[in-house]
């Protein structure tokens, strides 16, 4: 490092040594690691994108299984190399960035000293010539030597002697030299620790512990590189400005952001879908590594979901199947996951589905909710191939384990917060889409429809959205379809006869409470949510009603609430299912594909 291993003490580094540090060499080394990282990334792509998919087509027998296993491990090796080399690169660049800053401080001090004809000694002290007048005899005051202190505020000058005017200037120069050396030595020490920690375990396997270690590495590098990279990420900018920011970066800068901040770039609305997908796939590995090491129930639940998503991402789509894009992933709150089926930047039609009550990042979400988006994409592509459908878990939906009272209080707050996040996401999609004005659809199921409703009430409605689909809705907080700001002919509602949630807004409270009791905790909870402390219909008019004025499409009545000897709320959960209710699923898909006006209408309630 800068001055050998003993820089930690701060005393071993001299200003002369600091001046001579060749930061360009550090940056060259960083570029070298960057190239290795890129090669590893390309190699992983080749293995996972070309070699693995082709194996079963061209080979038969037991050797295939063995070869696939080996190739998978090789792919994991390359991914690990990509991640760690990317971190090395940023660490070196960041070190160079900090050293260069101190070199500038040092050079400024040396230049000032030269202009004043002061002498800067090897130990950092500064000698100044005689100058000024003495208070008593008027003779010029003798010169002297000032020694720098790294923290000048700590020493208060004595006011008793008339100073040589050069003394103060010399002190300032000496202090600046000392500070630059001290700060550079600190940086050297910090980065030396980080670089020493960037090492892999023995052997070819990349076990969970290694990814956990990689997650810690990334955290360490991020902390050190804060001023170098993070502060430049335009979190407060509009999606269109973020898109322009990303487009203006060099390839090297993009690679560094992806290596060090996959979570920030991956979840930044306005960034191209392919970039988000690449960042989030890396982040998924790091998140799984982070959660592996924990033994609480919440982490285990999220980890199971992440593993299932990871499994699906690795499956090569069959002919005619939409590819998956991971547009968001996170473990904050109840967890975050945004998955698109079909590329939302190239598709003419883009739809996002907002799930509802009791949805969180668990295995059920990873299987069931993702399947809803996938089924919707498949059916919509029958009408128009240029379609992408997204499952959007970008907010904390209410959870029944929260308890009834907390849910009643949090009732609209979660929808408001979720609505805000959803608006950001949709305006990001509108900005990153290649088409001038893509056809966009917002789909809300259950409490998700309340979230979509909240999103329409902020600003001029949901950015870019042309059509809105509400299924299994308990009401959305407004009384008329036109209040959703897309025109009443562009609001579509599915409400199954036996879906008790869709009956919640009705005024027949007696019936409701009976249904709530019949349903046990979940039903009572839902009833409580709509009628907190008996204040009435705070979710608004029934979207399936005549008064609301939306287009209602046919939905299978679904299994009765009480029948076959058990209580069932399955009628609430089959609107997207191409097997259980293909008519409803196809109607949703037609709206998504931009053919909403051709959906078969059903009379309102």
């Amino acid at each position, binding site marked *: 490092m800068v001055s050998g291993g003993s820089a930690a003490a701060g005393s071993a580094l001299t200003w002369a040594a600091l001046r001579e540090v060749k930061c360009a060499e550090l940056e060259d080394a960083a570029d070298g690691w960057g190239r290795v990282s890129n090669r590893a990334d390309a190699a992983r792509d080749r293995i996972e994108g070309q070699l693995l*998919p082709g194996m079963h*087509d061209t080979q038969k027998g037991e050797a295939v299984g063995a070869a696939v296993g080996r190739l998978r491990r090789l792919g994991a090796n390359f991914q690990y190399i990509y991640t760690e080399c990317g971190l090395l690169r940023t660490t070196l660049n960041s070190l160079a960035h900090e050293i260069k800053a101190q070199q500038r401080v040092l050079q400024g001090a040396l230049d000032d000293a030269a202009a004043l004809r002061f002498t800067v000694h090897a130990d950092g002290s500064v000698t100044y010539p005689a100058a000024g007048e003495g208070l008593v005899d008027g003779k010029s005051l003798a010169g002297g030597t000032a020694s720098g202190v790294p923290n000048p505020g700590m020493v208060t000058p004595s006011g008793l002697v008339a100073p040589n005017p050069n003394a103060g200037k010399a002190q300032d120069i000496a202090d600046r030299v000392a500070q630059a050396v001290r700060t550079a030595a600190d940086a050297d020490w910090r980065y030396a620790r980080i670089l020493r920690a960037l090492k892999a375990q023995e052997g070819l396997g990349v076990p969970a512990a290694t990814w956990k270690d990689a997650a810690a590495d990334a955290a360490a590098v991020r902390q050190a590189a804060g001023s170098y990279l993070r502060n430049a990420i335009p979190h407060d900018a509009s999606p269109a400005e973020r898109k322009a920011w990303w487009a203006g970066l060099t390839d090297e800068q993009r690679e560094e952001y992806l290596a060090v901040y996959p979570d920030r770039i991956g979840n930044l609305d306005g960034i191209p879908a392919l970039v988000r997908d690449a960042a989030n796939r890396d982040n998924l590995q790091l998140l799984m590594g982070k959660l592996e090491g924990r033994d609480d129930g919440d982490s285990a639940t999220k980890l199971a979901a992440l593993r299932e998503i990871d499994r699906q991402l690795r499956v*090569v*789509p*069959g*002919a*005619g*199947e*939409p*590819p998956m894009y991971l547009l968001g992933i996170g473990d904050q709150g109840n967890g975050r996951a945004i998955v698109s089926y*079909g590329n939302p930047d190239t598709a003419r039609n883009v739809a996002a589905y907002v799930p509802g009550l009791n949805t969180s990042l668990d295995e059920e979400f990873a299987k069931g909710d993702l399947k809803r988006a996938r089924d919707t994409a498949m059916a919509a592509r*029958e*009408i*128009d*191939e240029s379609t992408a459908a997204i499952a959007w878990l970008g907010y904390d939906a209410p959870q029944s384990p929260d308890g009834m009272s907390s849910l009643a209080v949090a009732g609209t707050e979660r929808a408001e917060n979720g609505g805000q996040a959803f608006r950001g996401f949709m305006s990001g999609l509108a900005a990153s889409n290649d088409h001038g004005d893509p056809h966009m659809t917002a789909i809300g199921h259950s409490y998700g429809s309340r979230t979509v409703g909240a999103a329409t009430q902020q600003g001029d409605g949901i950015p870019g959205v042309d059509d809105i689909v509400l299924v299994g809705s308990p009401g959305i907080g407004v009384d008329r379809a036109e209040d959703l700001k897309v025109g009443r002919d562009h609001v579509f509602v599915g409400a199954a006869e036996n879906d008790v949630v869709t009956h919640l807004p009705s005024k027949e409270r007696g019936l409701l409470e009976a249904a709530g009791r019949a349903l046990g905790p979940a039903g009572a909870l839902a009833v409580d949510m709509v009628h907190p402390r008996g204040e009435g219909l705070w979710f608004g008019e029934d979207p399936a009603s005549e008064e609301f004025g939306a287009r209602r499409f*046919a939905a*299978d009545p679904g299994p009765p609430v009480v029948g076959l000897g058990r209580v069932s709320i399955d009628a609430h959960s089959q609107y997207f299912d*191409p*097997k259980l209710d*293909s*008519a409803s699923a*196809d109607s949703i898909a*037609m709206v998504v*594909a931009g*053919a909403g006006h*051709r*959906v*078969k209408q059903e009379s309102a309630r």
Partner: protein
Amino acid sequence: MTAINNDAEFPAIYARTRDGFGVRLRIGGKGQAFFQVDTPCVRESEVADSTSRATAPLYDGVEFIPRPNIHSDFWSAGAPGVAASRS
């Protein structure tokens, strides 16, 4: 018969028996027909791929199945050659 959409461009018909066997026929974009049969299935199970050969080249990872480029005097729309030129 559970639902019928007699739209001119995207007609569809859905039928289901009481025990859960279902049939769906739908005309999608550019006159493509989609036929689907469902059985009530208790356990999740693998469904084998079709053994008949497709008339278009199909392989894993091809996102869009090519449109048919074979002309039929009976089924194809418009003058001869129109369907073929669409491919």
